């Protein structure tokens, strides 16, 4: 099977500081991949490089063989770790904007998801709580029929009840040809639904492994393993 995503010798420096160092890995279609690591380990940098918001200092990212640009953005649904939408717009404005902007956006699906999560279509983004905003952004990101989903901390501010709905939404809405990369600190909440895990440590790839293999080898849950590796 052809990899949908490749990182080849990927490096990123911010001035003199190294954020990512020589990262090499591949992701196959159909895989749900957890991106884990302590604060400042390079998760957001990696996702931004993949979304084409940052340019590598060395090496490259290839999505379906292309470096990030117009071609990859049409097949990549990126959920940033902070609000990137104008606060004066309303929920239904965003749905129609996404509908016009992305050819693979399913307006009916987005509206149904927003209704399930009880988001008021007329609410202004600027007036939303952090959790409500995150729910809306995730609905928008998952309503695209993308080949690659890059979700940066989609769950941080979301209440536990909605978290379960959102995880289920992710599970139900990606297809066998698509891959999902999800960065999070809520390891316990997501680990059941991950195929693989990428663990970053100080800008390096510490581990890339199937989650069940890791459980078999370590005898621990992913959450326990993570806490064990990064004990302060």
């Amino acid at each position, binding site marked *: 099977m052809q990899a949908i995503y490749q990182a080849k010798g990927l490096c990123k420096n911010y001035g003199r500081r190294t954020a990512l160092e020589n990262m090499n890995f591949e992701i196959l279609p*159909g*895989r*749900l991949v957890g991106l884990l690591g302590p604060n400042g380990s390079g998760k957001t940098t990696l996702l931004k490089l993949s979304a084409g918001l940052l340019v590598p200092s060395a090496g490259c990212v290839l999505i379906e063989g292309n470096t990030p640009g117009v071609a990859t953005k049409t097949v990549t649904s990126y959920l940033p770790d902070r609000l990137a939408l104008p606060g004066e717009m309303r929920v239904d404005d965003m749905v129609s904007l996404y509908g016009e902007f992305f050819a693979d956006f399913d307006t009916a699906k987005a509206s149904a998801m927003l209704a399930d999560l009880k988001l008021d279509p007329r609410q202004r983004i600027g007036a939303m709580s952090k959790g409500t905003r995150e729910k809306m952004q995730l609905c928008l990101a998952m309503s695209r029929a993308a080949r690659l989903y890059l979700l940066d901390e989609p769950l941080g501010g979301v209440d536990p009840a909605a978290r*379960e709905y959102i*995880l*289920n939404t992710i*599970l*139900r809405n990606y297809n*066998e040809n698509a891959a999902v990369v999800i960065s999070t600190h809520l390891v*316990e909440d997501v*680990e*059941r*639904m*991950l*195929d693989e895990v990428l663990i970053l440590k100080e800008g390096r790839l510490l581990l890339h492994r199937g*989650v*069940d*293999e890791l*459980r*078999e080898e370590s*005898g*621990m*849950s*992913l*959450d*326990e393993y993570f806490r064990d590796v990064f004990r302060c």
Partner: protein
Amino acid sequence: MEWNITPGRPVYLQLIEQLELAIVTGAMPAGARVPPVRELAAEAGVTPNTMQRALQELENRGLLKAQRTAGRTVSAGTEQLDTLRRQRAEALAQEFWKQMQALGVSTEETAALLRAAAEKENV
């Protein structure tokens, strides 16, 4: 179907156990059509890959059979079901026995307790 997945053990093994149990108890009777992988996966809150792996393993053991057109059916024979049921029962008995030992309950007491529990249930 009710799923109970704990994070400490490989998820595909837990799926295999719980599907096996559903087959043995008749929740998924012989000849029944197995729901699609994606549906089962979403229900259990796991990825389709993991569910696929579990179903494949049950297929290899002869408990499920892939149909040429679409999907799978339960294909376990009576003999196979009996064997599985016995294995399950033995494992449960062993576990129960260990826990009683840990509590310091004697063999006779354990047997008496079991009989009493059965009578209580049967009333």
